[in-house]
């Protein structure tokens, strides 16, 4: 069973919000030197889903990423977790790719690399939150797709996906090859010991450039990026005791017509 997992490198989303800064001119977040780059959480879960399949079915997992040279680190971390190999697609020509261009490049890389049975992606990337690349890759490859999987099973050339919907779950079956995007309900990604991580750091990761994969023209353009100002000034309710504060709160809310 050949599985491809698409992963993306992002700024650590867990830094305190005061350390989050943007460059309004360049229209992207600023990477402070001390802030680390990490794998997007949903992508790590997509890899976990692939690893669970590999735990019970003989499989080969290839991790692919479109990004900067530094993305090799997260590819290597995926190998530490149990992926078999990785490919970085990187070139200045791919900078400023939108979801469409990213999907085009990844789809080409996937076509070029192998006949994959299953492709797994995170439901949305942890920085731009656009949520399109997975489905887009499937469309470009002409294979069926299901998004927001909470559970994935493979048997008899079929993939059975438990899809998370607004008020419950739906089980959908598709023939392979297929693409599935994965959400947090799939479960926790396994923790690779640092020993494994250091071991995997020695692995060579091939880079494909614009000479190997043609860049695509983006379809969407970002015209502005800003951090919204918080205008609301909080009015703290007074009272002699917490009980009284509670009582006064109720009165304030009645005044504000909230109750």
């Amino acid at each position: 069973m050949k599985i491809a997992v698409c992963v993306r490198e992002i700024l650590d989303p867990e830094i305190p919000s005061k350390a989050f800064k943007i460059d309004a001119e360049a229209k992207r977040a600023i990477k402070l030197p001390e802030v680390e780059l990490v794998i997007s959480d949903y992508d790590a879960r997509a890899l976990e889903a692939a690893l669970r399949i590999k735990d019970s079915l003989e499989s080969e997992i290839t991790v692919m990423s479109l990004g900067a040279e530094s993305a090799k680190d997260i590819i290597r971390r995926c190998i530490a977790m149990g992926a078999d190999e990785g490919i970085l697609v990187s070139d200045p020509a791919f900078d400023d790719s939108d979801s469409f261009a990213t999907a085009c490049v990844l789809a080409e890389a996937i076509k070029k690399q192998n006949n994959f049975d299953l492709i797994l992606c995170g439901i949305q990337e942890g920085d731009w939150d656009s949520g399109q690349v997975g489905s887009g890759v499937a469309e470009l490859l002409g294979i069926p797709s299901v998004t927001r999987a909470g559970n994935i099973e493979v048997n008899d050339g079929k993939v059975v996906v438990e899809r998370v919907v607004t008020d419950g779950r739906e089980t959908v079956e598709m023939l392979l090859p297929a693409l599935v995007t994965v959400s947090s309900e799939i479960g926790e990604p396994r923790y690779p010991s640092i020993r494994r991580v250091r071991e995997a750091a020695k692995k060579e990761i091939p880079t494909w450039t614009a000479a190997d994969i043609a860049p695509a023209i983006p379809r969407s353009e970002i015209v502005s990026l800003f951090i919204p100002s918080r205008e609301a000034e909080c009015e703290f309710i007074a009272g002699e005791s917490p009980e009284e504060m509670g009582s006064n709160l109720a009165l304030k809310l009645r005044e504000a017509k909230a109750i």
Partner: protein
Amino acid sequence: MSQEELKQDILDVVTNCVKCRFCLAVCPLLDITKGWQGQGASGITLAIYTALKWEVEREYKEALRDLLFSCTTCRNCVVRCQETSVGVDLLDAIDKSRQFFVEEMYGPMPQQKKPLEFLERYGNPYGMLPSERKEWMKGLGVPDYSEATAAEVLLYIGCTATHDPRIADVARALIQLLKAAQVKFGILEDETCCACPTFRLGEQFLAEEIVQENISKFKSRGVKHIVTLSPHCFDTFLNNYPKSEMQGIKVQHYSQLLRDLIKQGRLVLKSKVEKKVTYHDPCYLGRHNDIYEAPREVLGSIPGIKLVEFNRCKADSLCCGGGGGRMWADFEAEEERLANIRVREAISLGAEVIVTACPFCLINMEDGVKSVGVEDSLKVIDIAELILSAIEEQG
């Protein structure tokens, strides 16, 4: 150690367990779960033994993981086994099992991954950016160890003090005491974690990387005497750092230094603190390092203080629930919190104050006081803060 070596060690240790179950009577996990035999102490080690010996199915690995990583490493089982049974070092088996599990990628518990990931990225388990921590350290008004002239003592503040405002209060109180006693001390402005969470959670490789970095710092800055705020840093330096490389470095917990300073007359306690207090022995001072008297001597020298003892005190002290990486994680079978039990014990003693000597104990006890709802009658105060109020002028 390789997986094979770890496995063999664990089997060797646990094979000596005679299943007398005396350890279960003192395991705190049984106080906060349904209390089944399998839930703690030898229940844990025997489950791991079985899993390793007979290569148990994958479907049990999460349950095993939670069992193994729910242990607070309080060491009560080890003490009990030594005193009343065959003397199996259950904690050694648990430490090695955690290493085994982490290497197999079966552990730790999901909530415990974050402190490890943050340690790797930023050098502390709380995800503080290095610049944030440096700012905080600079703001203490204490010289950087490398620049302090003839500094005798390296005060090791620890990650929790730089992250949690309540523990920052304790750090500041301790600093005032050291200044009052005219101790020549400094701090490391670029202090990072002692590596305790990595050791306790079985992340051995990262632990050793951090240890080497710290040892380089100590050596290059000529450190001869370390005094820690946290018993966890204290225990890690004393027992987990390679003894050969720590030769010539004296390691103390601050309660020991305070005792020395009071004995030497460098700290004079003249203001009365007329309170009924009870001292909560932290696991990592008490059962791990046999330090029971120093904090009591320190407390005893406060004029006007009335010290009452918990029924379960000294080597019987009830763990607060923070050790062994459990400061960051709850587990599914948990039905009550240890701190809540301890708070109720303090109330029934009629104590007005629980005195702590550990950041985790302090945080957990304060949470416990809030949960039980007795903020008006019971306070949680650190030894340093209490001593400070005894040297300050009244009024």
